[in-house]
C-alpha cells in the first residue's frame, strides 16, 4: 500500500493508479522486442515430432544454432517448429561436442526470420534479459515461451560435469531456464541475441529451474559458427603452455611445450601473461575462460612480459583433443540418445551410425525428402555441408575470375610468373612445368620436384615456397582445389591484419598441408599457408590485389612470411603460359 493513502481508496477500482507513461512505453518496447525475438526462435523436435529442445535461426536460408546435447539424440535428422506455426524439415550440419553447440539447417524457405546478433561482451550484471524457447516441450502451437530475468553474472566458467561439455566465459541469468530451453536464445532487453541457453545448476532440486541458468555467449557461438557450417566435428583449443598465479598475484607460465607456437614466438617459462585475444588476463582462471571461446588453430593476439619488457605477438592455438577422440565421444552420445533406457531398439539399417556408412554416399533413407542432404563421414557431423561450402566459396569468384593466360593453352604447358623484389631491381621468376618447379631470385635458380622435397625448404625458411604457393594459386583457379589433393573446408578463421574472418580450406598435398584462405566476399585467395607439421612455422604467402586495376584479377603483390617476419615481398609483373618442351627430349639436339 502506498503510504498516506486511504486503504479504502486503494480498494476502489476508480482509484487504481494509472501507470506512468514511461512504464507503458517501456512495456511496449519490451513487448515489441519479445515479439521480434520470438519470430526467430525455433523448437527442435525429432522426425516423429517428439521430444525436443530449442534453437534460434540466424540466417535467412535457415541455419539454426542450438546445443549439441539437443541435436545429438536425434542423430542427423530433425524437425524445427517456428513461430509461424509450421514445422520445417532439418538436418544437422556441424557439431561442437566440447562447447555444446550444433548448427542445423532448415529447409522450406529462403526468407526465414533471423535474430539480430548482439554484443555479448557489452552485457553487464544487473541488465535485463529474456530467454525464449520450448521449456517442458510446452509449445504445442509452436509459440515460444518467454521468461524474463536479470544478468546474474558474466564471464562464468562451468567445469565439465562428468562429460566433456565445458562452458567457458558464459552468461549466468535468473530468467527461468528449464529442460527444453536448451539450445534456445537468450536476448538482451532490446531483443538482440546474446547467448545460447544450455545449462543450469540443479544438484538436489531435480531438473527444474533454481534461478541459475547459463548461456554460451554469442561471441563464442559466432566464433565457431563458420566452422560449424563446414559440417565438421569442430574442436576447441589449447595454448601449448600452462599458467599459475605466483605469490605476487601475477599469471606466469608454469610449463611450456617447445613444440608450441607460443614457444616459437618467444614465450618462456616464468614470463607473465597479460592479454589473450582482446581480454586482459589477471588470473589463471581468466586465461582458461578466454581460451574456451576460440576454435582450434585460430591465431590470436598474445601480450606477455619478459625480462626485455612487454611483448605483443600472435599465437596459433592447438587442438584440445587427439585426432579421432571426438568421433568416439560423438558416437557414444548419439547412441545413448537413440536408445532410451530400458527400451533397447535394434539398429535401424536405414539409419546407420555415422562411422559405418561408406564415405561420400548419401544415406539412403526411404522417402526422406532430405536423404540427399546427409553424407556420413568420419570426423564430420554431416559431410554434405563440407562439399556445399566448398562449392559456395568457389562460386564466389565466378563473376570475376582471374583470367589465366590462354595463348599456348595446349598441353603440356609451362607456366611462368615473373616479378621483382619490392623496392629492389632484383628479378624473380616462378616457373612450373610438368616435371619441376623452378624458382629464380636474381641470378640464382633452383628447382624442386612437383611432389616432394618441399619440407626442408619450408623448415629452412627459404624463399622458394613462394613458387609452390603460386603454383597452388594457379591450379586452384585452373583445375579447382579438389583436383589437387584431399580437400576439406575448415570454416572461417582470422588472418593477421584482416578485419573479417576468411574462408579456410585445407588441401593435403603429399608431404605438406596447405591452408588456403579466401575472401568471404570476393573468393580471392588472400593467404596460402604451407605446413610441414604443426611443430614448425608454416610458410605464409600473402596475396594482394590492386583494386580493380587489373581486369585479369591477378595478384599484384606477394609476400612471404615465416612466424611474424616477412622473408620476401615481390611485385608481380607477368604471368604467361607456353608450350612445354621437355629438356630431356631436347637433350639430343643440344650441342
Amino acid at each position: 500500500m502506498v503510504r498516506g493513502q486511504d486503504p479504502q481508496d486503494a480498494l476502489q477500482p476508480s482509484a487504481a493508479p494509472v501507470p506512468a507513461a514511461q512504464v507503458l512505453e517501456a512495456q511496449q518496447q519490451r513487448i515489441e522486442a519479445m515479439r521480434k525475438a520470438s519470430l526467430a526462435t525455433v523448437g527442435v523436435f525429432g522426425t516423429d515430432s517428439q521430444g525436443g529442445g530449442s534453437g534460434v535461426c540466424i540466417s535467412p536460408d535457415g541455419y539454426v544454432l542450438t546445443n549439441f546435447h539437443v541435436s545429438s539424440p536425434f542423430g542427423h535428422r530433425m524437425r524445427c517448429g517456428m513461430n509461424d506455426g509450421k514445422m520445417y524439415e532439418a538436418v544437422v550440419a556441424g557439431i561442437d561436442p566440447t562447447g555444446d553447440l550444433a548448427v542445423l539447417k532448415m529447409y522450406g524457405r529462403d526468407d526465414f526470420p533471423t535474430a539480430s546478433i548482439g554484443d555479448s561482451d557489452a552485457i553487464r550484471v544487473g541488465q535485463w534479459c529474456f530467454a525464449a524457447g520450448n521449456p517442458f516441450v510446452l509449445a504445442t502451437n509452436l509459440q515460444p515461451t518467454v521468461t524474463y530475468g536479470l544478468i546474474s553474472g558474466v564471464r562464468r566458467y562451468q567445469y565439465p560435469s562428468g562429460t566433456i561439455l565445458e562452458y567457458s566465459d558464459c552468461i549466468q541469468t535468473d530468467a527461468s531456464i528449464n529442460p527444453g530451453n536448451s539450445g534456445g536464445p537468450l536476448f538482451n532487453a532490446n531483443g538482440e541475441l546474446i547467448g545460447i541457453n544450455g545449462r543450469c545448476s540443479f544438484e538436489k532440486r531435480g531438473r527444474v529451474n533454481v534461478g541459475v541458468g547459463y548461456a554460451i555467449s554469442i561471441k563464442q557461438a559466432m566464433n565457431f559458427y563458420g566452422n560449424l557450417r563446414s559440417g565438421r566435428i569442430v574442436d576447441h583449443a589449447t595454448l601449448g603452455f600452462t599458467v599459475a598465479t605466483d605469490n605476487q598475484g601475477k599469471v606466469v607460465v608454469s610449463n611450456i611445450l617447445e613444440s608450441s607456437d607460443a614457444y616459437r614466438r618467444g614465450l618462456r617459462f616464468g614470463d607473465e601473461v597479460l592479454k589473450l585475444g582482446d581480454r586482459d588476463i589477471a588470473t589463471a582462471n581468466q586465461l582458461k575462460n578466454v581460451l574456451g571461446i576460440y576454435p582450434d588453430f585460430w591465431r590470436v593476439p598474445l601480450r606477455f612480459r619478459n625480462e626485455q619488457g612487454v611483448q605483443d605477438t600472435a599465437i596459433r592455438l592447438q587442438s584440445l583433443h587427439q585426432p579421432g577422440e571426438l568421433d568416439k565421444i560423438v558416437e557414444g552420445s548419439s547412441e545413448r540418445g537413440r536408445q532410451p533406457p530400458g527400451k533397447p531398439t535394434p539398429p535401424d539399417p536405414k539409419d546407420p551410425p555415422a562411422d559405418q556408412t561408406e564415405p561420400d554416399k548419401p544415406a539412403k533413407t526411404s522417402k526422406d525428402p532430405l536423404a540427399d542432404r546427409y553424407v556420413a563421414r568420419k570426423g564430420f557431423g554431416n559431410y554434405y555441408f563440407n562439399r556445399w561450402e566448398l562449392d559456395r566459396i568457389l562460386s564466389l569468384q565466378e563473376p570475376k575470375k582471374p583470367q589465366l593466360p590462354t595463348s599456348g593453352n595446349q598441353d603440356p604447358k609451362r607456366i611462368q610468373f615473373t616479378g621483382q623484389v619490392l623496392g629492389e631491381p632484383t628479378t624473380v621468376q616462378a616457373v612450373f612445368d610438368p616435371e619441376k618447379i623452378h624458382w629464380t631470385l636474381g641470378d640464382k635458380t633452383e628447382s624442386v620436384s612437383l611432389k616432394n622435397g618441399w619440407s626442408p625448404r619450408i623448415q629452412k625458411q627459404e624463399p622458394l615456397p613462394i613458387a609452390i604457393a603460386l603454383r597452388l594459386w594457379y591450379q586452384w583457379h585452373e583445375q579447382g582445389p579438389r583436383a589437387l589433393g584431399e580437400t576439406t573446408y575448415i570454416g572461417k578463421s582470422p588472418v593477421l591484419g584482416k578485419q573479417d574472418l576468411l574462408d579456410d580450406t585445407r588441401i593435403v598435398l603429399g608431404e605438406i598441408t596447405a591452408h588456403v584462405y579466401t575472401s568471404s566476399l570476393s573468393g580471392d585467395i588472400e593467404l596460402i599457408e604451407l605446413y610441414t607439421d604443426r611443430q614448425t612455422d608454416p610458410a605464409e604467402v600473402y596475396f594482394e590485389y590492386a583494386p580493380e586495376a587489373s581486369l585479369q584479377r591477378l595478384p599484384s603483390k606477394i609476400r612471404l612470411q615465416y612466424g611474424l617476419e616477412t622473408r620476401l615481398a615481390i611485385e608481380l609483373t607477368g604471368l604467361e603460359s607456353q608450350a612445354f618442351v621437355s629438356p630431356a627430349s631436347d637433350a639430343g639436339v643440344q650441342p
Partner: protein
Amino acid sequence: MIRPIILLVFAWLCGSMCPGAQAEDQPQPSPRSGLEILFQSAQQSVVKLYGAGGMKGLESYQSGIAIGDGNTILTSWSTVLDVEKVRVVTHDGRRLDAEVIGVDPECELALLKLENSKLPGFQLDPALEARPGQRVFSITNLFGIAAGNEACSYQKGVVMAIANLQSKFSGLRSVYRGKVIVVDVMTNNPGAAGGALIDLQGRLVGLVGKELRDQQSGIWINYSIPVDVLVASVQRIQSGKTRNANTATLAKNPHKTADLGLVLIPNVIPKTPAFVDQVRSDSLAQKSGVLPNDLILMINDQRIDSQKSLQQVLLGIERSDSFQILLQRGTELIRTQVRP
C-alpha cells in the same frame, strides 16, 4: 493494497533501468543503469566463505555479509564454520582468515571477526521492514559459482509474505522458527546461506537462510531472516551471552564427560563435534534427559564447537555445581539443567 506498491516499484525500475528508457544516442558502452551501480556497490559487502565440508551433500562453502565497520561478518551458523579459521574471499579477490567470535543457536547465526578488512559494511537498520510485494534482490555465492574476485550472483524477486517458520503443523524442519521474509525466487540454494537480500536502494533487508525443504510437500522454501531479528541476534552474540570456551578459571574438582555418563563419538579430527554416542544408565546425563545422537551446542552459554572445547568448559565447572546444557536433537533445540 499490494498492487499500487508493485506498480510504483515497477515504475521506478522501468524509469531508471530499462534500456528502452535510456537515451538512445549514448555512445558505447552504454551508461551504467541504476541497478548496475546498485549491484556494484552492494556486492562489495558480500563475501564468499570456505571451511569444513565437501562431502555427503554438505557444501564446504557459503556466503556472508560484512556489517558495521566491515570487520565483522554475519553469516549462517553451519558446519562450514567448524574449522579453526574460516577463509573469507572478498569481492576484490583478497583471501582473509576469520575467527568465529560467537554464535546464536536459535537464529542459527554466527559472527566472524576480520582484521582490517577494508570492506564497506551493511548498516543494520531494524526499522527497515520488507513488505509483501516489494522488489528485492539476493546477492549470494550460490553453488559456489564465483571464485576469487568474481562477483557473487544476483537474483531478482518479490517478497511474497512475512511469516513465522513454524514447524508445528508443517513439514518444515528448521531450528530457527522465527520471522522470515518469504520470496518468490529460488534464493536458498547450496552455498547461498548468509548472503544478502537488498531492496531497491541497496539497503539490507534480510540475510538469506539455510536450505529448507518441507518434508510433506517436498517444496523448497526460499526465505531470508529480517533485519530486526538480525540486529537482536548480533546484540546477543556481541554482548557475550554466547562466548567461546574459556579456560581462565579452572575448577579444583571439575566435571568430566565419563563421570557424567556421556560417551561421545570417536574424536578423530581437530574439531570433532560433541555428538553423544551413548548415555550410561542412571548417570547424571541420563537424568538430565540427554539422549544418544544429541549434539551439545552450549554449556552455560559458552559455545561448544568441538569435543575439545567441551572438555575445556567442563574443566571450569566444579563437580558439585549444576550447569545448563543446550542440545540439538534433529531440528529441535533443547535446554536442560544438569544437577549433581
